[in-house]
């Protein structure tokens, strides 16, 4: 992580789309009127959903909407690395996990693929379609190495898989989400090896248990 600053080139203005505004108002309504600024993080997130990133005009608009100083919104936007302060790829924002388990399972190779296909880290690609980043642990260590692309996890990746995924995004397709080595979520490859007894799942293995001090049920209840 390096120093986070606002992008050099900023749009002229920012306007909330009606659906963003509706959701923003839903968040604001959750808090007392004099505590509107509590909604700043969800609204920054909504704005990022709308625009792909958080611009300076957007920060000013949020500050105005919540009745807080611009610097306070700026503080929040720079604190959380999930808020993008520069425009990101229109097709995909690829966040490759580089923390120890993924690194041991070959995330370096994934990043090499990104570098060769997209370009430098944290920079918008030349065609404007991709941005890739190295991020800290995304909590899918079982499926290492993995990457988050836009809103979904792409797991158990190989350099070839990732190259294909990038090509698919570039072609406007939506590649399959989840593990790429054939397994279901984080189950072992080839299917489950334990807890196979179907009785575990039909309820027949359960025994009535006595809860101490539980109220005695009514006779005919």
């Amino acid at each position, binding site marked *: 992580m390096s120093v986070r600053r*606002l992008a050099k080139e900023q749009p002229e203005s920012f306007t909330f789309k009606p659906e963003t505004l509706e959701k923003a108002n839903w968040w604001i309504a959750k808090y007392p009127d004099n505590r509107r600024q509590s909604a700043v993080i969800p609204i920054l997130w909504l704005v990022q959903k709308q625009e792909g990133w958080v611009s300076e005009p957007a920060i000013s608009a949020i500050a105005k909407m919540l009745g*807080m*100083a611009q610097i*306070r919104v700026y503080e929040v936007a720079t604190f959380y690395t999930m808020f993008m302060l520069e425009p990101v790829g229109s097709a995909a924002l690829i966040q490759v996990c580089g923390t120890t388990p993924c690194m041991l399972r070959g995330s370096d190779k994934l990043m090499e693929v990104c570098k060769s296909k997209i370009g430098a880290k944290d920079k918008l690609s030349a065609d404007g379609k991709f941005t890739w980043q190295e991020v800290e642990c995304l909590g899918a260590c079982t499926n290492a190495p993995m990457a988050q692309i836009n809103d979904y996890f792409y797991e158990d990746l190989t350099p070839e898989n990732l190259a294909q995924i990038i090509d698919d995004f570039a072609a406007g397709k939506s590649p399959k989400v989840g593990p790429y080595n054939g397994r279901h979520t984080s189950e072992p490859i080839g299917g489950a090896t334990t807890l196979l007894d179907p009785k575990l799942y039909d309820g027949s293995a359960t025994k009535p248990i006595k809860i101490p001090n539980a109220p005695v049920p009514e006779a005919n209840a």
Partner: protein
Amino acid sequence: MAKAKVNGVEVEFDPGMTVLQVAELAGEEIPRFCYHERLSIAGNCRMCLVEVKPGPPKPQASCALPAAEGQEIFTNTPMVKKAREGVMEFLLINHPLDCPICDQGGECDLQDQAMGYGRGGSRYAENKRAVEEKYLGPTIKTFMTRCIQCTRCVRFSTEVAGVTEMGMISRGENAEITSYLEQAVSSELSGNLNDLCPVGALTHKPWSFNYRPWELQKVESIDVMDALGAHIRLDYRGPTVLRALPRLKEDINEEWITDKTRYAVDGLSRQRLDKPYVRKAGGLQATTWSEALSEVAGKLKATSPEKIGVIAGDLIDAEGLKATKDMFSSLGVNNLDCRQDGSKIGRGARETYLFNTGIAGIEDADAILMIGTDLRNEASLINARIRKSWLKGDVQVAVIGEPYDLTYDYVHLGAGPKALKDLKKHAFRDVLKNAEKPVVLVGNGAISGSDGAAVLNLIASEVLSAYDVVRADWNGFNIVHQAASRVAGLDIGFVPHGDGLDTEAMLAGGLDVVVLLGADEIDTSKLKGSFVVYIGHHGDAGAAIADVILPSAAYTEKSGIYVNLEGRVQIAERAVFPKGDAKEEWAIMRALSEAVGKTLPYDSQSDLRAKLIADHPTFGRIDVKPSQKSFDVKTLGAKGEVSDRVFASNIKDFYLTNPIARASVAMAECSAARAPKLSVAAE
């Protein structure tokens, strides 16, 4: 009172105090960077660690820990020392070792505390962090690499100054203090940020690289840039005052001063009048005191007293006013006025022109009505106090007059006299009526001009008597003065005698000789037909039209008595000697009186002070705020027609209100950096 033990010594404390405060009660000094008495508690520097029993077996941040009954606090155990040494080592990991070139060097908290808790050498071999400099305006110079992220500046600007412009962006090692998009900090109190900074990250831009603190000699003085009489310390080296810093004075300035008070001192070295001048053949020519005095004396003797007028300016000490008044009264001159702004006050009881509630007393108010005052620019520190009680939710504020940005919310009742008359129809009427301690602040903008007295009378009838603002136990009537010399002038009676002319009438022409005692805030072009004697220290508007200039000493160059707007008499000490041939105003008057043959009966300043106290006993009580007394509000002003106008402050540019500030480069820069907003708004 609860009891706790500090290092085995039992102390009593008020419930609600923190462990740090309790330890200080016991006389133990706790090192700290982020904690400040007047700011909210952040608890992020971790320097104030102490050991507390009962409690977890680890050091605790004493600034944020509430003290409890029966607590045992240890501030000198090996554990505490080791913990603080650890904190200090971490703070110094990224702090540059540039103390020899740092402006804070010699008065730096980090430097001092590193002496107590720092290691001899660093164990950190990695590169130090570097942080880009920021632009924070004309008063703040940044060396952000030195910042230890205590956030005092962020809290001060948000809480006290009322401008939420500073913040800390990013996080962890990359955290940086900045303002939004590096806009200049717009507060008139911004210099205090530099004072608060415990390291050399924010330093005083106007004074940068000018001095080392140990070279300076110090003298305690009183500020004259506004009427508050803030307690300041003047630091000087040789003949030059290099800086003005606030002194602690709970009743007046707490520990803040405005940027004008602080940074206008460079104006004392520029545009100075250091020799007497006489206008000859169209130009001013340097001359000797004897020639200049005989020129003035000859003119005064040859002119009948009705044709002589004296206007006193805003920065004059009481001695100068007293000597001037005595001297011209002895000549029979009745045209005396110390009210350059033409406000119609000063004839009645002392309470009719004082800030009766008091500067500290304003915090007791539960409802405030401001009439024609831009309090933020006229008395910034009173404004900061109102903001303080507004933040606590203790006060409701309404404004009649031009609506200015006061850093807190208020109800705007209207612009002029009509709003005063309609107050009884407005909902704020109930706030005033129900208030136990209502306060009315009246600015000079409302009560100057031809209908000033009538407005004052209107205020008395529509507000003061209607809402019981002035009672036996509470006096909520306050005049917001802007000039340091004004209350002393009114106390001395430096106002027209009998049918004498006031400032406005004197400027209307018809006078043969006009003496300007440091008076520059008037329309001097109206004095073209008169013989003008200017007594002052700066080549400003008055000097430009003068026929004779008698150079006088500025406030740093003489010991003088000033009376602040509360009526508190204060003595300022001399820091440096007057420039060149300049003399104190009273000494000039003493010499002039001899030249006109009406020698004043005092030969020294102490004789003059004795006479001053004998004639006006209020001057005998130094540094005492007069107790609140009620007065008959019916005596305020005079009945008359009130014209419909907007009550606007007569301060057009906060940074350029007096000759010293106008000669100051720092003030010019402040004015340029902070004024443009006004012109944008006007478009």
